């Protein structure tokens, strides 16, 4: 019981179970406008994919410490998405080459952030705020504000069809990326060092770790993951939009929210991939449930309340348990 409140992943799993059981009961008893069933949950996974991948990207940079954060992920999704759109839609590159090209482009954009943050020492919040502005502007300029949705781009939608009820991209993109990220964080020396520099940078430097390179790579990875999301988003919507990752509130704020909700410590050095995965499942399924709870437009409003309340409550709960342990 005590671990339930101190261990963020366990807590989230418990919350997730409560949510699903409760919503299913509501649905079965006619309190929702439609059943909250397996099919619905599986089809919602489509929204989990980008959220979870960007959440993992945020985890990597937040864990790297020194106020690590990446506000530019949404802008990178827009810009890489446009690049991908050009490669597939205008230049008619084969899809696989274009995907590799997109990921490389994302890595390059991430490297710009990494250079600013790790090499020059610009605080991450500021560096990525600047690149957020710059990348989103470039995305708009790249094709005169217009989306790219020529036939080859529309054909990309087959990348995101379904296997059974599950969106294909869960298997082709999400799981491989999450497994790789998990291995990276927990089973490689790079992961160890990443957590080390985030926990205590000075100690890491004395221990002879190449702090700059390690942090730089975290931002490159964040760019590459954003590129994967860009590819998925272009395919899912059959269109490369210059504001794909920045429209509305953009993709960065939800991704950071997911990372934090998943238990990533904003001070660096602490955070688990599993937490991010469960947190994104929780938020998406919660939102999907809320939409079914209202027949009219209020659902989207209550989603905001729920997300805010869950974030504040979980942070305070974490704090309370930490204080008690001290």
């Amino acid at each position, binding site marked *: 019981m005590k671990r339930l409140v101190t261990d963020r992943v366990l807590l989230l799993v418990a919350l997730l179970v409560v949510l699903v059981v409760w919503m299913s009961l509501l649905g079965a008893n006619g309190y929702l406008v439609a059943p909250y069933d397996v099919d*619905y949950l599986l089809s919602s996974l489509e929204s989990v994919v980008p959220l979870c991948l960007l959440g993992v990207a945020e985890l990597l940079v937040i864990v790297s410490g020194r106020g690590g954060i990446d506000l530019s992920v949404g802008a990178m999704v827009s810009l890489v998405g446009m690049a991908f759109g050009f490669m597939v839609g205008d230049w008619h590159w084969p899809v696989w080459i274009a995907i590799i090209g997109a990921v490389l482009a994302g890595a390059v954009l991430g490297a710009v952030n990494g250079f600013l943050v790790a090499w020059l020492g610009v605080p991450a919040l500021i560096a990525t705020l600047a690149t957020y502005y710059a990348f989103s502007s470039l995305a708009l300029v790249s094709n005169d*504000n217009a989306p790219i949705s020529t036939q080859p781009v529309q054909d990309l939608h087959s990348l995101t069809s379904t296997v059974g009820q599950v969106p294909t991209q869960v298997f082709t993109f999400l799981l491989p990326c999450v497994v790789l990220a998990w291995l990276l964080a927990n089973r490689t020396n790079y992961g160890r060092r990443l957590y080390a520099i985030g926990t205590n940078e000075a100690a890491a430097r004395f221990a002879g770790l190449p702090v700059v390179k390690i942090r730089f790579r975290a931002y490159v990875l964040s760019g590459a993951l954003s590129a994967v999301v860009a590819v998925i988003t272009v395919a899912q919507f059959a*269109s490369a939009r210059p504001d794909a990752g920045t429209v509305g509130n953009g993709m960065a704020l939800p991704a950071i929210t997911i990372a934090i909700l998943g238990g990533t410590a904003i001070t660096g050095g602490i955070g688990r991939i599993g937490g991010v995965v469960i947190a994104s499942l929780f938020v998406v399924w919660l939102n999907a449930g809320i939409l079914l709870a209202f027949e009219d437009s209020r659902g989207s*409003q209550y*989603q905001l309340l729920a997300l805010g309340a869950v974030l504040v409550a979980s942070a305070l709960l974490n704090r309370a348990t930490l204080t008690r342990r001290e």
Partner: protein
Amino acid sequence: SKKDQPATGDQARVKVAFVPKLQGIPYFEAMNTGGQKAAKDLGIDWIYKGGTTADPGAQTEILKSLIQQKVDVLVVAPNDPDSVVPILADAASKGIKVLTSDTDAPNSVREMFVNQATADGIGKSVIDSLMTAMNQRGKFAIVSCGQTAANLNSWIDVQKRHAAEKYPDATLVDTVYAGEDEAKAVSMAKDLMNAHPGLTGLIGQCTASAPGVAKAVREAGKIGKVFTVGVGTPNSMKPYLQDGSSSAAVLWDVEQLGYLTAWAGLKVKKGEQPQATSNVSAKLPAVKYEDKTLLLGDPLKLTKDNVGDYDY
């Protein structure tokens, strides 16, 4: 509270769901009002469900929840015409009838598009109104909203072409994008007036920038020197039409658009094809149908004389 379950005897009531680009702007709320009126007249269920931001992703999630709800007819005003293509195909494959309204998604499986007015009609009407005010000559600029909004961009194309063809003495000097943000539209309109001292015309391309450009003219004290025309809703344009900072607003009867949308939904569900000209209601006596497109009619020109007739 327990939601109303369709009673077994009520099977026949058709559920028409409309998904606007976003909730909470008067334009779509007025469509909702019209849709509700039609629902009462026609004996159908009308669902209005929109996101809090004009974001294709949020729209997709709402569409998904409506598919899960197994509505009979799904009408959408897409934020991005191409982005809704896949989800609409998904809906159709589950036996749901799919339509678009307000903004079309021509590449989708939609069976019908309920068009308020053609891009041609709106674009030309805006230019003609502005040119009347500007005496057919001078410099003008456009304050548009979302950079990627497909319908706004198509109107801009028509406006450019039409102005070039019909008003050789008028020149379009700049097109700027203020987002869906009135304050930003005000500031950018002022920037345009400063940048081009000879500017005499401004177009507010959407319901946020139409009052914005008028307010800018009013605050700059240039009423009578700079003329504005915009695509704005009656209540928001009323004060500006009255003091002359706006010469005219081009719109259409949005409530009737909502009404027509609901009517079209029912038609499609029943599998009926509208006639070339249909009598929908007293207010919509002759709606034209051609090429899978139902046309509400000509654009409505709001001036200080008729703006009081509408309340949204």
